[in-house]
């Protein structure tokens, strides 16, 4: 196994151009998905699903809540030194 010894070889995501394309296509997809909501007929099981952009908002808020609660609530409670059980 080689370790990093060169800056000469540039890989796909080392190139700013490809990162730019990736970022733009991602953000355009987000806009497209937000807009798509208004052109589809939803089959809902629960009233909340009928709220506009329900899945977008739920995913975003859920994700942030999950990560922050794991970071600020769970981790302080359960984190111990690596040799805790030794």
């Amino acid at each position, binding site marked *: 196994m080689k370790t990093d010894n060169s800056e000469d070889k540039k890989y796909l995501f080392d190139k700013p151009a490809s990162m730019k394309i990736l970022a733009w296509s991602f953000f355009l997809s987000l806009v497209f998905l937000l807009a798509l909501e208004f052109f589809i007929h939803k089959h809902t099981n629960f009233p909340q699903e009928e709220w506009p952009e329900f899945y977008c908002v739920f995913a*975003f808020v*859920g994700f942030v809540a999950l*990560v922050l609660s794991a970071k600020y609530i769970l981790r302080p409670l359960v*984190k111990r030194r690596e040799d805790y059980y030794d």
Partner: protein
Amino acid sequence: MTDVLPPAAIFIIGGLLVPLIRGKWKSAYMLLIPVAGFINLINIPEGTHWVVGFMEYDLIFGKVDRLSLLFGYIFHLISFIAILYAIHVKDDVQNVAGLVYAGSALGVVFAGDLFSFFVFWEMLTVASIFLIWARRTKAAQGAGYRYLLVHAAGGLCLLAGIVLYVNQTGSIEFGYIGLNGLATLLIFLGFGVNCAWPFLHPWLTDAYPEATITGTIFLSAFTTKCAVYALARAFPGTEALIWIGAIMTAFPIFYAVIENNLRRVLSYSLINQVGFMVCGIGIGTQMALNGAVSHAVNDILFKALLFMSMGAVMYRTGGKINCTALGGLYRTMPLTCICCIIGAASISAVPLFSGFVSKSMVMDAAATGHMQIIWFILLFASVGVLEHAGIKIPFFAFFGHDSGLRPKEAPLHMLIAMGIAAFFCIFNGSFPSYLYSLLPYPVEYVPYTVPHVVGQTQLIFFAAFAFILLTLSGMSPSELRAVNLDADWFYRKGGGLFYRAMDISMNGLTRVADRVIVGELTGSICRISQRWPEVLCLGVMIPLWSVAGIKGKDLEGKVERTRAALQTHTSPIGISAATATIFLVLIYLLM
């Protein structure tokens, strides 16, 4: 039925013969076992086969129906993949253990009676433990012992339940049991240990990341899925399972966020995915059971694929698996990276990938049953899956910060094994009708509707958007080298406490016993046993001698001789007999 064999027998006998075969034929032989097993399996008609009388009961080694067959197919496929992935392993302990483990899983799935079911169930534990110990590290040894103790406790719980159940019903047939009374509760809990229910789960997250690189692929496939099968067979529609499953989907995702070891992240993810299956079994409708079983099939494939990609990373980086040590490996391991992304897309239920067509069946069953809270928990858990398995695993291993590591691409056999799993992840997701046709009940569910595809895509993209914003703003939890306490704290720390409590109480008892019994009591008994015959004997004889007129020195002489005789145990037979008789008369009078 003479031309087909019980599926378990092919793997177990075939596995035990592995050490006898040397050289390059060994690899071919091992790969041949699941192939031969599969050909054997597709020739077994549905029904009950291999019934063997045992005492007054019938042991059934082949209860073949649509439920057991589906698990049989996927266990054969994953065995082939796992054996191919591990074909470089020269350690026969692992080779034999892997095959016997797979055989035991098939034994469980096709068992038609509780006795043979239990024997295969215990063989699962015994065989799998060697896949953990074979890593030969101190951590693996410790985790293996804990794994063994937890499963032994679970096995005893199951055995107690089976004994009570058979005693009550008079039948050892393994079919629908249902939750009613102590016997069934013990069986239920016994299954729960292997299924990694909340609080019974830490054996999994403790042991799987410590197992060998190749062993974890076997481990991720069999133990929990056998428990899912057993629950689907014996406890479908048990309401408690709905909540147990929902909690299983939700709590591991918090741990997965802060976990550094990527194989441990996958272990938490395994519990999360099994939660969807358990929830589906609890809902118990035909659609829910179809969803649970098809998700088991898909999970075996994409979880193995993710574990294989992380295993390949470990293999090529000399055992590195922590987020803190990895990053940027897409540069030199692009094919492994692509396989990992396919696994991540499948577990995240991206449309056209396998998770999309099976997990949604369970969620739809919850929605159809108007279980609003459950449905929201499952939806939240789906977002959580995206965080830890969909994004964290590929991101921290293959992208993220450049660790500077430039390992070689995974070996060819590992790439082929990952490729097969990746193929089925996409095939099952893109052409679900083939998988659906194998499910236990007719499928009316249509996964690819516009609202479903759009909703799920929105969920995925906006979760990814949240990840990007959190990472760019530095609010994502930093990866730390640390231990996160889990329910195993109770027995890992509690074990030490128990040891100290036993040390103080039992060794204290020994010291007291030494002082009182050895030091004091024995000497006292010795003195008493010497003194009392003398007192008794002379107490009787002196008055008799006095009456007979013996006095003075004669009397003293007699007393001295009697005392000497008693001390040296040389008393004349007459005196001994007289003493014994007097003693017996006394006892008689006292009684």
